[in-house]
Structure formats: C-alpha cells, structure tokens
C-alpha cells in the first residue's frame, strides 16, 4: 500500500507531572518516544498491561491529553494535520474525523439523557445537522447499524445491559461519520458471550464504513482474532510491532513471549507452557534505567541495565526493541 498512513507518530511522548503541592513533583513518562504507523483501513491492536501507556497514547492521539514531545500526523486523503499543534477550527474539524469508544459502558453514558439524545449529542455539538428531523434520521440510521431499534431510543441507559450500552457508545462515536476510532478496552467490561458480538459488530462497521480502528486491549486472544497489526507496549515504550499472524507465530521480544505464556489455556492439560515472569511491574514513576523490561527479563545481560534498545526492523513489517532478539530462539511451539 503506497498511501500515507492515516496516523503516524515519531518519538511521541506524553508526560505528566505528578505529586501534589509546589515541590516534589516527579515526571511520569506515560508514553516514551513511541513511533508507529497506522495504515488506513486497518484494525490496529495496541496491547499492554497496567502502566504500559496504551490508553494514554490513544487519548493523546485524540487530543484528550496533551503531547509533550515528538510528532504525530493525521492524513486521511482530505486533510493533513499536525496533531501536536492542532487547535482552533482545525481541531474542531479533527474531532469530526476521530472519536473514542470508552471502556466502561456504565460510566460512558449520561444517566439523565435518553438514548436518542445521547447519540444525537455529537451531531448537535458539532452542528452537523440543521433540523430535528435530520438529526433523528441520522440517529436512527446509525442506531439500526448497531442493532438498536426505535423502542430503545426512547429509553434511558438504566434499562440496558452492558453489551447494549456498549452498542449505544459505539453508535454515539460513529454518528458524526469519523474515519478513525480509538476503542479503549471497549470489550474488557463485557461478558464473553457479548464480547464476541460487539467485536463482530466493530469488524462489520469497519468493512461497511471504511473506518480505521486503534484497538487498545490487554487481552491478547481478543486482539489476535480481530486485528491485522499488533503493537506491544511496556512502561511507555513500544517493544514489538508486527502483523498479527507473524507476531503470534514468531514473537521476538521476551515480554511478548511472556505475555503469550501467561494466557491461561482452555486445555486443562496444557499447563506450564513457556516462560512465566517473576516480579512485579515497576511503577511508572520509578522506571528502571536501560531497557525498561530488564528487571523481569529472563534473558537480561549487563548491557540491558544501561542501554535502552532502539527499535530494529527484522523485516516484513516486524519491529522489535531488544538487544538480544537475534540470539534468542523462538520458544513458542509452532
């Protein structure tokens, strides 16, 4: 594909000053020099555990939190925005093109508004429709796509289950016709039987409306089934990125390998597969020097404690940040 990627970041950093009072504020590097490209039309998975910075990265790309370093660009064929300096009318326009689906279906919907009003709110705020009829038509259209019927539109959120609320959230995100959606742990709070349903809906919407998704999740199995490209983050850094099949067939980074072996298998006899990690995830305010993962890495050497590994490219769209990836053999059974 020779098109420019929809989103491309270069050494993007997002930092926060934490701590109270006027003294003793430490810098929390939530996202630390991340460079990635999201192709138009792809379903891009961003995986990590707590403190990985994946949620912060997603929100930074939507301008919900300020970026403190590096660059990010949005090119959808119609516009070309520099996300680090976006403001004013350009920012308003960007908001029409990029939206967020939240994790918690219970907190993301105002309990005092009817479903119709919730879905219509973006249209009203952005001034995309002129009459009430126009708004109603668009709301009904997107609600139908999310399998919500007319009766549902009249009700309040308390009448719905988690899965249904998530569909309302999705409808709200889509009503303004965005081409880029960040789904922040959008199925994490859902039951397994509903999760599959919502994921299928997202894939369907992607096909029908040609939307690019940034799918943030901690659940590798879900990501494996829905995404075509996966990036793994640890303590704010991008440690590995590859097309899905390749990543799952041959992960290169020790952390990625550990993530796989940590997933409990449905086969009761398949136990103790691969390397289990010891130790705790370091606090983001107190990050280890050198390679952030060295404190838990079973393959760490002296160099890992002092030098941060750069992102290297083994080829075929695969990227990995590890000093020893060449030496370490693939431990996953084919």
């Amino acid at each position, binding site marked *: 594909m020779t098109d420019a990627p929809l989103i491309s970041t270069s050494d993007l950093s997002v930092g926060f000053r934490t701590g109270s009072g006027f003294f003793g504020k430490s810098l929390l590097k939530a996202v630390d020099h991340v460079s990635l490209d999201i192709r138009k039309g792809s379903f891009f998975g961003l995986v990590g555990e707590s403190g990985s910075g994946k949620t912060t990265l997603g929100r930074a790309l939507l301008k*919900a939190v300020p970026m403190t370093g590096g660059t990010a660009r949005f090119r959808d064929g119609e516009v070309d925005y520099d996300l680090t300096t976006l403001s004013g009318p350009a920012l308003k326009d960007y908001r029409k093109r990029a939206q967020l689906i*939240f994790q918690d279906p219970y907190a993301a919907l105002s309990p005092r508004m009817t479903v119709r009003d919730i879905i219509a709110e973006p249209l009203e705020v*952005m001034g995309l429709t002129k009459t009430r009829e126009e708004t109603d038509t668009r709301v009904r259209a997107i609600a139908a796509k999310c399998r919500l019927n007319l009766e549902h539109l*009249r009700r309040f959120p*308390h009448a719905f289950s988690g899965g249904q609320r998530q569909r309302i959230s999705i409808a709200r995100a889509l009503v303004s016709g965005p081409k880029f959606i960040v789904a922040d742990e959008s199925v994490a709070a859902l039951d397994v039987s509903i999760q599959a349903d919502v994921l299928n809906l997202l894939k369907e919407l992607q096909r029908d409306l040609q939307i690019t998704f940034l799918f943030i999740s901690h659940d590798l199995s879900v990501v494996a089934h829905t995404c075509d490209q996966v990036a793994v983050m640890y303590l704010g850094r991008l440690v590995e990125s590859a097309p899905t099949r390749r990543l799952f067939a041959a992960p290169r980074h020790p952390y990625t390998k550990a993530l796989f072996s940590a997933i409990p298998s449905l086969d009761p006899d398949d136990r103790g597969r691969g390397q289990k990690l010891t130790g705790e995830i370091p606090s983001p305010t107190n990050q280890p020097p050198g390679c952030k993962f060295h404190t838990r890495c079973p393959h760490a050497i002296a160099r890992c404690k002092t030098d941060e590994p750069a992102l290297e490219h083994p080829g075929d769209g695969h990227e990995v940040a590890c000093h020893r990836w060449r030496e370490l053999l693939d431990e996953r059974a084919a």
Partner: protein
Amino acid sequence: MSVPSETLPAGVDQKAKEAYFTASQGQLIWARFKGNRTAMIAAWALVLMIMMGIFAPFLSPYDPTIAGRDENYENGAPQLPKFWDENGFSFRPFIYATERERSIKTNFRWVVTENREKRLYMRFFVEGWEYRILRVIPGDLHLFGVDGDGKIHLFGTDASGKDIFSRTLHAIWTSLAVGTLGVLISFVLALIIGGVAGYFGGWIDSVLQMVTDAIRTVPSIPLFMALAAFMPDHWSSETRFFFISIILGLIGWPTLARRIRTHLLTERTQEYVLAAELCGASAGHVIRRHLLPSFTSYIIVDLMISFPYMVRSETALSFIGLGLKDPVNSLGALMQNVSKADVLLNYQWYFIPVIFFVALVLAFVFVGDGLRDAADPYSDTKK
C-alpha cells in the same frame, strides 16, 4: 422430572417494565420518594402548613396586629367550640360570650367572666377585616367567626388581646418567607462560588476554598449580636425582616457552596462529560447539558435540608431578641413571650406556636431525608 413453572414469584407486568425503562431520573426519584411513608406524611404536613401560611388571612378570624385585638379578652384562655352543653345539643358549634367588668368588687381590675347562658354561634365564611393574599389578591372573607359582637379565640389571646390563632398562622408565613429568602440568597452565592471552584479546580478552587472556610468559622451568635446592636430602632419591621434574611443568607452559603463544589468536581470527571468534550462541546454546553441536570436532584435535597436551619436560625434569633421583635408575627417573636414565669404558670396556651414550629422543622427534615434517600441510588438496604 420436569417441573412446570406457571407462576413466577417475582411478577412484574409488561407496562410497568416499560414504564421503568423510559422513566427519567426525576420520575425514578419521585417513585422512590412516594414509597417512603414517613416522607410522604411529612410532605403532606409540609404542604398543609405552607397552605396555612399562604392563606393565613383567610383562615384567621381576626387581624393579628394590634388593630384586631380584643380588649375584652386579654390573656384569654383558648375557646374551643362546643356542640353540646347543659342547655341542649346544637348542630352549629358555639362558644360562650364573655363579659368584662371592673368594679369595686374586683379591686378595679378587669375580670373576664363567661356567660354560660349566652351562646355565640359560629358562622362560616364571614366577612371581616380586609387583607391581601400574598400582597396581591384582596379579600375580606374569613373561614369562620361568631355571631354578634363576640370573638372566638381558638388558641386564646396574648397580653394585649391579640388572637394567638391568627398570629400563629401569620407567623408561619413570616418564618417561611424569611427562610425562603435566606435560602435563596445563600443558594445564589453558593452556586456562584461553589460552581466556579468546582468547575475550574486548580488554584481558583484552592483560593475559594480558603474564603469559604474563613466565612464558615465566623461564630454566628456574636455576629448577630453585633448586627442587632447596629440595627437602628427606627427601621420598620419590614426592613428588619429583609435585613435578617440577607444576613442569614450570607452566613449560610458556605455549607451549600461546599456541597455544590463537590458535586461538580465529581461530575466533571465522569466519562460522559469527557465524551462530550471530545466532540468539541463548549464549556457552556457541558454545564448546561450535563453538569446542571446532574446535580439538580442533589441541590433540591440540599435546599430542602437548608430550610429548617434557616427557620430555626430566625426563630432562635428572634427568641433571644436579636431578630424580629413583637409585634411582628414570626414564630420566634411569638415564642419570645413564652419565657416569662408569669406565662409559664398561668398562660400555657402561649406554647401552642411552639408545636407548630417543631412540626414545621420536622416536616422539612423528614422530607429532606426522604428526598435524599430517593435520589441516592446506592441506598437499597432499607426495605
């Protein structure tokens, strides 16, 4: 072995379910409130008393000011209407006429005697002294009165012959009015200060918090004593009335402001507010569409709970002489007379307004509690 299950113990029919699904927050709160018996009883009592206060002139047979006093019946005991006495039964309730005489036999002091032979029948919807309801609607009709020249005093009279029943009803109105004004003033101030602090956060919040806390630490009694000393004697009761209300409002806003600030701080971080902001919603939209509706129910509860404090404050102040004074009719002013030993021994009916005061405050408190429980979605361990 299959068990047929025709009857489901938890039966809820379809219409009720749909009603639940489409019920707005306000409707849900009201439904929960209705289920709370204590609160509903208190609510009815409150409505009743408010009505009594508004229609006080209609319900009072006599002008509660000095103009309507009964010279023939000073410090008179309550006269309860009878239907039956030794002379026979009567459909129309009646009281006995009273006569006042002064003679050498009584050492030239006025003595009031009851003439049990002369009956004064009660009449309903009589014409009497003129009034204006809420200062707007004129009228001269009163609910009841008696035949002839006599007067009926259901709660007795005070030292100058003013009918306590009439005074009490008008006093309810005055106390409510002062309370309402006080609550309104404190609410407006609390909304502005608490609102700004809660919405912007940061250093603005810190500074406003310091101001709020400073005002809260001011002790109210000494403040009022100082102000009472300030108040010129020539001020009319009206002016005093407004002055007291304003002062109560200025003292009362910190508590409300703190509550508003807390509500706002919580609401601002809700995800659906972030969702609106991500669409590019302006601050005005967020405030109007999300923040204000979200804390309306809480604020109504807070206001309801503030009322008894205002009424109590006014009453307390008037009682100790720093607020409204006789001859103004307020519950506190009425109770001022109660503390004299003379009254305690001989004229116990002076206490009747106290009952009304207690009832009014309790009604507010129970309604406020009921509203708070109804609005709080986490209180489900009551039934």
